[in-house]
């Protein structure tokens, strides 16, 4: 009995450690953003639907917004588009788009065909702003607080579930505390 005791205990400990590891990784395989809790990177980029104007991060200070990185070349972006339209309809948080390394004409016709969920879309041809935000694959969505901090990041399409579980509670908790 004694000679099996140590290996069995060691094995049990290993099982516990691995079980905790699996439990605590709900978003399996996604890498935590280095920006969480940090100020959202600044940008000043041309507006897709109104090229004469500039979309500035400084103009967004003082309110919540969702920063959504997309492109017409991105398959998953089409999948989340319906949810984005619903988010716009809900009117809780405005969506600011970042059209990442895309063709402007195609991007505009995408919005005409599928509907435009965005309050404004910034155009990032060179991909430099996307790098500042630590973007590595579209779609990615960041929730930015009125203080200008990144409070949540989603890699992959936005779904109703993520909206209800991760985004809505954060926004309503914060605005309840503020009033």
């Amino acid at each position, binding site marked *: 009995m004694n000679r099996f005791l140590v290996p069995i205990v060691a094995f049990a400990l290993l099982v516990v450690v691995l079980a905790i590891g699996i439990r605590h990784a709900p978003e399996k395989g996604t*890498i*935590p*953003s*280095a*920006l969480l809790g940090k100020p959202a990177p600044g940008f000043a980029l041309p507006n897709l639907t109104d090229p004469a104007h500039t979309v500035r991060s400084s103009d967004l200070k003082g309110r919540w917004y969702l920063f959504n990185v997309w492109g017409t070349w991105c398959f998953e972006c089409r999948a989340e588009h319906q949810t984005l339209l619903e988010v716009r309809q809900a009117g809780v948080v405005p969506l600011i788009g970042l059209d990442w*390394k895309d063709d402007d004409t195609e991007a505009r016709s995408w919005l005409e065909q599928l509907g435009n969920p965005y309050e404004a879309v910034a155009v990032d041809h*060179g*991909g*430099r702003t*996307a*790098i*500042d*935000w*630590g973007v*590595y*694959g579209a779609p990615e969505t960041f929730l930015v607080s009125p203080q200008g901090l990144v409070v949540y990041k989603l890699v992959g399409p936005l779904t109703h579930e993520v909206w209800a579980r991760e985004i809505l509670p954060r926004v309503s908790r914060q605005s309840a505390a503020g009033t």
Partner: protein
Amino acid sequence: MRRFGTLPLVGALAALGLARLACAVDTTQMPTPELQARYSALTHELRCMQCQNQSLADSQVGLAADLRAEVRDMLLAGKSDDDVRAFMVARYGDFILFRPRFAPRTAWLWLAPGLLLLIGVGVFARVVRKRTALLGADPDPVDEDPRP
């Protein structure tokens, strides 16, 4: 005859070298050999975030090309290797480094192998000591094997 014998070999080697060049994903040329070496070292130790088991240097993905350009521009602007690493980590986190820094978050990653080795050595030493003690108590254990 001997003199010409090496020529085909030289030719073959040159062709091999050219083939290697043609295969390379990244053909960036830095102005000095020193910068080229640093550029090459950095792009090999930074991860391509889209194809996570390739380095920036090996990846054909658009984002990897953008990040390589970023490394190139930073080096040309006179930034240090640590500046480049800090720039990448601030945006993409420790995961972008193939060789993570030693920090509270990564301490287990660095210490666990040594710790496991120590435990293994400890167990090994105990087993050896026990067996030596058994041998000492019974100089000829084979004769007294209870099995038939």
